[in-house]
């Protein structure tokens, strides 16, 4: 008669594992007839599983032309649909480049030396109007560094234009900073578009 009480101390998981090829037999198999019977049943089920028949499919899974056009649209629709998917090898590096360049430009512009770069890059650009020059007579204002009238207005304008005099300087929005901000905006927008497109694709 099987020792059921003794069998309760045996680990059934190790019996189940011993069904796999190459796995050593559990010690209880040599002494416990219940374990032996359990293993035999598990072997029978395991060997039958791959041969079991399954319900027959009722549907034909071939794709129609409409399916194909929806899943892999051609032309510009295909380009748009590819954004954010594994087929998109373009927008991610583009977004990263714009963002990196934008950040770099902004940081350069914000640094003390960078301000100089910003102003140098603004050669020929119109400076932001400053109160000192607005009221001065037109003919008495001179561009810093140029020869010309040294009336008090001109001297004031020259002083104000000193880039190192931060207390009197109006923040200078040079093209570098503007361009950098624009690139950062484009880059982060592209990342946003990719994210939205990826979510929309998953819902399709």
């Amino acid at each position, binding site marked *: 008669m099987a020792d059921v009480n003794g069998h309760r101390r045996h680990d059934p998981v190790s019996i189940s594992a011993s069904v796999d090829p190459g796995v050593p037999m559990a010690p209880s198999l040599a002494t416990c007839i219940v374990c032996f019977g359990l293993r035999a049943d*598990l072997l029978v089920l*395991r060997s039958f599983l791959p041969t079991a028949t*399954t*319900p027959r*499919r009722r*549907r034909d*899974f071939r794709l129609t032309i409409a399916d*194909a056009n929806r899943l892999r649209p051609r032309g510009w629709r295909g380009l748009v649909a590819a954004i954010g998917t594994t087929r998109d090898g373009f927008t991610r590096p583009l977004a990263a480049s714009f963002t990196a360049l934008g950040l770099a430009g902004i940081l350069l512009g914000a640094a003390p030396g960078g301000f100089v770069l910003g102003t140098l890059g603004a050669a020929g650009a119109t400076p932001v109007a400053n109160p000192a020059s607005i009221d001065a007579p037109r003919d008495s204002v001179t561009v810093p560094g140029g020869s010309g009238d040294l009336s008090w207005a001109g001297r004031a304008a020259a002083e104000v234009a000193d880039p190192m005099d931060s207390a009197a300087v109006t923040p200078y929005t040079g093209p570098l900073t503007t361009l950098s901000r624009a690139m950062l905006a484009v880059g982060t927008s592209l990342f946003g578009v990719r994210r939205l497109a990826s979510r929309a694709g998953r819902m399709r």
Partner: protein
Amino acid sequence: MEGLRSTTVSDDPVQRRDLILIERARAGDLDAFNDLVILYQDSLFALVVRMVPDRDQASDAVQEAFFSAFRNLGSFRGGSVKSWLNRICVNAAMDTQRLRKRRPVQPYPELEDESWQPRAGDEVDPERIAVHAERSRAIAAALSRITDDQRTAIVLYDVEGYDYAEIAEMTGVSLGTVKSRIHRGRLSLRDILAERMELFRG
């Protein structure tokens, strides 16, 4: 076949054929992709319906898997096309299992013999066919009663022949968890079938 590994292409005619079809499908040939569908839809449906014991939901999962395969043809990097399709189907089946947890349905009911796929090499003896069909229904019913995780692990290991590491990678769990699911799943199956084991022992 640029862009694809060519390790054993020349040795295996089946693999060679599949790779040619994939390449043509990538180039826009829908018929080539549908040829792959014809070749593998039976085996893939059998895989999924074992994992998702509801025929309609299994059909939806297989259809979705083929849609996904077509949409992501560019992600195929060589190797076995069947394995690639298998993995897509397993993912689709697991997605369906997650949905089923939120909206449970009855597993497939008792089915007439004609609705089950005949296996190649079946006996012509009607009695043996009837016994085999009865065993199949019993095991299918038992599989539908164990947990999704255990069922997936048993189907992938005992039926499809994947090893522990492959199953761990496909299901996103550790090796130990895979082993535990397989071994405990087998024990659960056996417990459910305890009173019908004579059907299998005979």
